[in-house]
């Protein structure tokens, strides 16, 4: 094409020659690297945070999860480790300021027990939810995009795992492997999650791979990994995040259950351990003064689960381009454009009835 040669020449803003066309255009100003990174940070970190924060569920989720993270990281440093007989037994909650949640039947500070179990829990969640999710997503994308034998093999493996009943499988795996490392435990606990995630992602990828914008990206020379990141991922992110958070919930619940049942070794602190001891060893169910011993770990795990679930719901907003657009508010042009833009969106909904 005629303009090819002149593309290389950095004629900054010079459109004087008759040869130059729109393809020769280069900018006559500069943007500093700092500006660029600031802009990226805005888009990828600040904006999502603001969107989450504006939703009550997101706000709740962020606050609670942040609290737990603090609990798991700084907590064990600040709060003294629980030991038997560090205080009187079965002190009730909210009575003694130095043992705000009370103590258990062995005289251990319940708050300390919760806090010191959190790091391990966080590790499990990290490995289980994230590793499990990531694996599942990768498998799902490969299966969905490549198709053929790859697809069949991956799906068969996944389906087989998924068809084995969950708890017995976990019990079996735990009994065989006898894991002590929380990271390992986490992965085992979420193994069925991998199968589910890969199926779900594959189902989303199948129609996506046919989509026109994917084809256009291929025409523009996009590589396979580029396609995944730029064309598939944005569409899959809501599902992935929800899957991850669901995986976290699954890991939490499964771990507590297995510790409670005494299947996982007690070498690791866990809220389920506390429950186990409370329930099995000390018959806390029947002792009204020991009730808090049961309730505290229960509430701790439930609270985290709820927070994670709410966060998952709120995340949907982050990925929704309509919300993003509205959030960017076109704030500069304020009301007038806001209205136009809102009516654009809404009238499209109505227009769905009117348009071809």
């Amino acid at each position, binding site marked *: 094409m*005629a303009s090819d040669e002149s593309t290389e020449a950095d004629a900054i803003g010079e459109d004087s020659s008759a040869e130059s066309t729109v393809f020769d255009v280069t900018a006559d100003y500069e943007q500093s690297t700092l500006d660029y990174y600031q802009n990226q940070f805005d888009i990828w970190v600040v904006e999502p945070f603001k969107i989450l924060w504006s939703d009550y569920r997101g706000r709740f989720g962020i606050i609670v999860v942040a609290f737990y993270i603090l609990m798991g990281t700084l907590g064990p440093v600040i709060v003294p480790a629980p030991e038997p007989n560090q205080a009187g037994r079965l002190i009730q909650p909210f009575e003694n300021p130095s043992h705000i949640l009370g103590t258990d039947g062995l005289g251990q500070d319940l708050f300390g027990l919760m806090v010191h179990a959190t790091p391990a829990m966080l590790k499990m969640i990290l490995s289980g939810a994230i590793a499990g999710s990531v694996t599942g997503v990768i498998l799902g994308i490969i299966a969905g995009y490549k198709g053929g034998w790859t697809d069949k093999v991956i799906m068969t493996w996944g389906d087989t795992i998924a068809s084995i009943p969950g708890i017995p499988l976990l019990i079996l795996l735990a009994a065989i492997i006898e894991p002590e490392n929380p990271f390992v435990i986490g992965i085992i606990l979420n193994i069925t999650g991998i199968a589910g995630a890969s199926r779900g992602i594959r189902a989303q990828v199948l129609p996506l791979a046919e989509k026109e914008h994917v084809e256009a990206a291929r025409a523009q020379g996009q590589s396979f990994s580029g396609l995944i990141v730029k064309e598939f991922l944005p569409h899959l992110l809501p599902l992935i995040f929800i899957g991850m958070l669901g995986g976290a919930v699954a890991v939490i619940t499964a771990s507590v259950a297995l510790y409670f049942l005494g299947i996982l070794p007690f070498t690791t602190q866990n809220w389920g351990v506390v429950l186990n001891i409370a329930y099995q060893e000390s018959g806390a169910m029947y002792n009204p003064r020991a009730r808090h011993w049961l309730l505290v770990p229960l509430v701790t795990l439930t609270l985290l689960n709820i927070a994670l679930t709410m966060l998952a719901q709120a995340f949907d907003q982050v990925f929704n381009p309509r919300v993003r657009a509205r959030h960017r508010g076109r704030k500069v042009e304020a009301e007038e454009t806001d209205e136009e833009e809102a009516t654009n969106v809404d009238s499209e909904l109505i227009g769905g009835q009117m348009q071809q």
Partner: protein
Amino acid sequence: MSSDTDETLLNLDDISVHYADESAIMEVIPDSVKARFDWEEQPVRAVDGVSLDVGENDVVALVGESGSGKTTLGKAAVGLEEVTDGEVRYRGTDFWELKENGQIDGTSFQQARKALQIVHQDPSAALNPYRTIMATLTDPLKRWYPDLTAVDRRERILSLFDECGLTPPREYEDRYPHELSGGEKQRVTLVRAMLAEPDLILADEPVSALDVSLRVELMDLMITLQQRFETSFLFVTHDLKHARYIAGKTGGRIAVMYLGEIVEIGPAEEVIRNPKHPYTQILKWATLPSHPDDAQKAIQATSPLRKRDIPDPVDPPSGCRFHTRCPKAREACVDESPEQYSESGDSHKAACFREIPDHQYWQSEHLNEDGEIMIPE
């Protein structure tokens, strides 16, 4: 409009695109066994033995109905669909070989990939809804022109917005696709294609999803871009009127497809004014006139086709594929398959024996009992 250079821009040499849908089991069983028990899956022959040359600054409108293979042919031409047979050559080099080897002689795969772009029918599906327009458009620019800085890219995109009627350009930067109207989205996809400064753009029914009043506008834009930047266009459509407009205004050709083959090709106005192939004549007849009196008469007329239904592309009719429905078909058409002929030897060709004055077609029996059916104007 053919080029003067040695290498044709795009050369489709006897290409076929067949789809076979075999289950996993079938893939494992050896072919010999399948042949023995007659278990072989018949493929769908979407495109069957098509040859077409597209030059620099050339426009070809591919017309056909669904099942004609026009979209498949188009995508095969721009390397988005693999061919089962034959070669797709970009400036003399086989495209798929180029893809495997990365570079052959002086041509790199990058060059070929950049040179062949696409504009889709549905602008909503053609733009990633999760990315802003800017993000979508920046990617190709980064890839093809890595020397440009971020601000360079932005300026270039904005000036193309201007060129393509998206004004004021800054309005569109930060937008997500859902914030744009159908016409605007389609312009964006056009911008995306143009950013690569391609040699050829495949436009797949680019105006069919738009309102009537917007169609001419968009086609005019494509024509303007075509003429200014000398980009070749391969314009796929089911509507003869669109084909006439685009190919007519640019001095291009119209190629009519039926069941995977090109049955007629020639300069636009000629094909429209004087269609040689009975299928083209029927398509012309099927296009309603705009004058109410003519339109009313037309609605009431019966179709000259002998059969309504399109044959199965898995098992196309023998000989001339159109013979089962052709109002002028005769016995000769059942056995032999016509090549593209031109009686006068010019560029307007039709794959029909009626083009050959002394073919035995003229001696054979009509397939229709009552003789040849006339196709009304």
